[in-house]
């Protein structure tokens, strides 16, 4: 089915004029917020204002990310015949099914490059998975090396660091157990290492199962936005970071920073930061050079996102890129925006709460006619969305935006756990759909809908159906419409029909098929 696989992740070129227009419009919009005449309830206004400043900052860093910077856009270098570094291919294993590991090993063996050694980094023993010996047997059967850790620690990063002490290849290539590399992986990534300053080369994560269900689809659509315009933009600023898998790293660069960072749940993110701090260059190439599996159930998706959120927030609070030496201004902004992204949860919560506060208590954060606000807001929003659309190569989906905005609850959980210094263990994203009812993950959203309906009733009862009430109800409706794809993906709603409808009905029989 390779014909279905895109050769490159979509992204589009955004005109500089459009970006400048965006900035102008953004300042016009935010300028409106600075006018003191618009202050309603001062406390609510302050909270909302902070949220708007956050939006502005994130928007500006996004435009900075996608700003066309021709200096970094160049053709892939040609690998001279004399450049033939030794390569260690690591396949990290931590509880994945054997057949998936087998496929990955076979794919790694097919990589078109002679000076490579394949290592299965077997962590099944330390995670107390009974089949750890099966992994060793599989490696032996497929004639690849297997390094089994006996002492736990550092999760995936610890596993890689342990392997670093056992191997000697000049370049280390990391694949998760479910990421099957294509034969041309090394032919496409190694030439970049001719430049002795290049520390690592990252490639996209492509999910072959993205069309399986709502979750895998939403997850992939979010990923394609990240591996499309965002990572390409970061590459322009020499700020692309390691994404845990499908990456080739120069051993020297990795060893120089003490191996993969074991202190943080997002080990790849912090390791990249350290490598960049040491003056190494990085590259991101948007060619799809391997394929893997997306989470197929909401719980797996939730855990994956929570880990990323937690890791990034830890970096933000513990190793703030702004105060790191050795990073360029552009790199600092890029790392900062990646970390700040996960604060979006708190801002979304503020935004979705305001209409409810008004409907319940009549407190207005902003004192203006709703139409005046619309005149400033709509053009700003229009340009924002249009730019995102163009930057994504017209490929960004509503579902991707919905999943991103609906992650506020898990982002808040991550924020809380960081602030409370709660421990969080590294859990590998399951490779097969987990059975069960995961509607509980959408409870915050369902609770919001319930409270919003209640607030609407109270608001109409207290103030009548006037224009202020209807605008706030419209905002609530807007939020709910954004949450719907996420709620829809969290539960197999057709089960409800199975429960309530007689089984002989055509609808039930269709679902069963």
């Amino acid at each position, binding site marked *: 089915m390779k014909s279905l696989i895109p050769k490159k992740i979509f992204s589009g070129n955004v005109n500089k004029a459009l970006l400048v227009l965006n900035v102008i419009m953004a300042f016009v919009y935010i300028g409106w917020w600075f006018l003191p005449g618009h202050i309603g309830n001062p406390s609510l206004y302050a909270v909302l204002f902070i949220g708007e400043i956050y939006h502005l900052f994130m928007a500006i860093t996004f435009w900075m990310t996608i700003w066309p910077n021709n200096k970094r856009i160049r053709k892939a270098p040609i690998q001279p015949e004399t450049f033939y570094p030794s390569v260690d291919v690591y396949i990290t294993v931590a509880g994945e099914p054997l057949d998936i590991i087998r496929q990955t090993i076979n794919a790694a063996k097919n990589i078109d490059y002679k000076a490579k050694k394949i290592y299965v980094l077997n962590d099944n023993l330390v995670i107390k998975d009974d089949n750890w010996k099966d992994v060793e047997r599989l490696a032996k059967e497929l004639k690849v090396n297997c390094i089994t850790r006996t002492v736990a620690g550092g999760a995936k990063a610890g596993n890689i660091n342990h392997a670093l002490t056992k191997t000697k290849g000049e370049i280390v290539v990391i694949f998760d157990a479910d990421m099957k590399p294509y034969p041309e992986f090394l032919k496409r990534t190694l030439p970049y290492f001719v430049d002795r300053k290049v520390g690592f080369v990252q490639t996209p994560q492509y999910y072959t199962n993205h069309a399986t269900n709502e979750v895998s689809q939403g997850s992939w659509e979010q990923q394609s936005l990240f591996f499309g315009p965002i990572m390409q933009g970061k590459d322009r600023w020499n700020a692309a970071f390691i994404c845990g898998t499908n990456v080739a790293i120069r051993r020297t660069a990795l060893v120089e920073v003490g191996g993969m960072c074991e202190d943080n749940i997002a080990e790849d993110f912090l390791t990249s930061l350290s490598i960049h701090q040491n003056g190494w260059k990085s590259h991101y190439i948007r060619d799809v050079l391997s394929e893997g599996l997306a989470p197929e159930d909401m719980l797996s998706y939730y855990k994956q996102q929570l880990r990323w959120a937690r890791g990034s927030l830890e970096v933000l609070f513990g190793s703030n890129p702004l105060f790191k030496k050795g990073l360029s201004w552009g790199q600092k902004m890029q790392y900062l925006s990646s970390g700040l992204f996960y604060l979006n949860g708190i801002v979304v919560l503020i935004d979705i709460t305001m209409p409810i506060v008004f409907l319940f208590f009549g407190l207005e954060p902003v004192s203006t*006619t*709703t*139409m*005046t606000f*619309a*005149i400033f807001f*709509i053009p700003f*929003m*229009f340009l924002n*969305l*249009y730019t*995102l*659309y163009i930057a994504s190569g*017209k*490929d*960004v*989906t*509503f579902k*991707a*935006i919905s999943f991103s905005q609906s992650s506020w609850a898990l982002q808040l959980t991550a924020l809380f756990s960081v602030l409370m210094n709660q421990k969080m263990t590294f859990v590998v994203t399951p490779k097969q759909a987990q059975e069960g009812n995961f509607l509980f993950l959408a409870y915050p959203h369902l609770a919001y809908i319930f409270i919003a309906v209640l607030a609407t009733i109270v608001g109409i009862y207290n103030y009548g*159906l*006037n*224009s*202020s009430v*209807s*605008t706030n*109800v*419209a*905002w609530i*409706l*807007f939020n709910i*419409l*954004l949450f719907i794809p996420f709620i829809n993906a969290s539960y197999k709603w057709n089960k409800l029909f199975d429960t309530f409808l007689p089984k002989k009905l055509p609808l039930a029989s269709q679902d069963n098929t």
Partner: protein
Amino acid sequence: MNFIFIKNISIAHILFVLGISAIIALSTFSLFFQSIRLDESQSIWLSVKSFFEILNLTAQDVHVPLYGVILHYWMQLFGADIFVARSLSFLFYVATIPALYILARETANKQVAYVTTLFFALSPFILWYSFEARTYSLLTLMATLSHLFFMRMIRSNAENGKAGFFLSLVVGLYTHYFFLLVVFMQAVYVAVLYIQRLLHDLKETSGSKLQQITRLAALQTNTPEKKISLFRYAKHAFVHHKKLILSYAIAVASAFVLFAPWLIYVVSLGSASNTQPLVPAPSTFNLIQTFVLFMFGFQNQEIQSILVSLWPVSIILLFIVFTKRRKLAFKNIEYFALATFLPVALVFLVSYIKPVFLSRYLIFLAPTMFLLLSWTLLSFSKKIRYTALIGYTAISLSLLTIQITSAQTTVKEDYRGVGAYLSSQTDPSDIIGVSAPFTVYPIEYSYTGNSRIDTIPQWNRFKEGQRIPAFSQTELEKQVENYQKQYDELYVVLSYDQGYEDDIRTYLDSRFQLTSTKSFSNGIIVRSYKMNYNPKISIK
């Protein structure tokens, strides 16, 4: 209507037919039973005059004459009646439907065309003006035809559509001054195409393409290859669109040549007659309200403000437009976006200098707005698409019903009710005073009694070039003193407050006995005052 007879009739087809049938039923009701309105009475008053009088009065009224002239001959053929006058507008509306269908089909596909025409045909706003004896349904038709032929020119590099485009320009310019905005948008779009080509050429600044362009430009401009400059690039881009640009320019220039006599005539007349109501400066509310009106028509103030304040929901539409969705072709979408939104912004800005922002003047934006809306909704996934279409259709039909049946509809003017009331109450010993003066037309049309009808302030509209005088308290006192000498009772009809309604009311209330008061829809009030206790005429 071939689509009705196709083999596989889908839900969409059934909905389409049902929708259209419902419209006809509701609209016929509207056509028969609505009262004449101020603007309509002016149209009829004007159209019963001679051809040259129509030209003269229209020029003074800051309008263009085509509709008045057509209505003149139409009423000569079928009778000078409000029903006859309205049926002309209805014909223009009916003619717009196939024109819009063809435009949408050529721009997108049949499905979009069906939905666009359904939305258009269902629009309470469009229907309102389709049954109003005014120029607006003709303006909508001409704008639609102009888009159609302009697009044909664009898509065929001016091979097709030239004659139709030229005719639509001429007729459009003589239909309404706001048609100039259509012409302007088209000029902007031609400029956009030209700039796009120029940027495209300039972007190809390396390799064989550049050489190809420079060579081509050199050949076309007889210039040595090395001397190709930005100017030459500009010329090359012009050469690329030469046929289109020239055809467009010739069509527009020719249309303006034919329109020039009218402009010269208007200028030669000097000042306008000032018979129009005051147009207030628009607010941001009006800006969004315009599109809400197009979709949901005229509702009472509460419903309208609620509909307008629901604007945040429209942000979801932006999300849909700017995210990946099912592929639905839409050629020259930039033109339709420009043609729909830019005129509103322009008129809004201009209105801060001279207020001209009236939603009915912008009715020509509705066809392209419905085209964009239907395309957006049809881009949704199947479930959402059907929910949105059925939901929108149901809401439109409901609001159309409310618009027709509710007495609170903002644009309803029950002058027929006023006329009937006055006819039953007055006799030649009474006098009727109408304020504002220009509202005399619908009252005159509806009134069947024998009393004299006067205006406050007094306005001799039969005298050529006579403007409505400014209100003066002294003049009012003199006018009422004269009434006292001749009449027993004064019936004052107050509507379209021009800033002095309260002065009239206060003066009369303080001086005379108020004998009755009656209110009609949208603030029309009739108050009667005892002028004289010793009747002079004993005709009663």
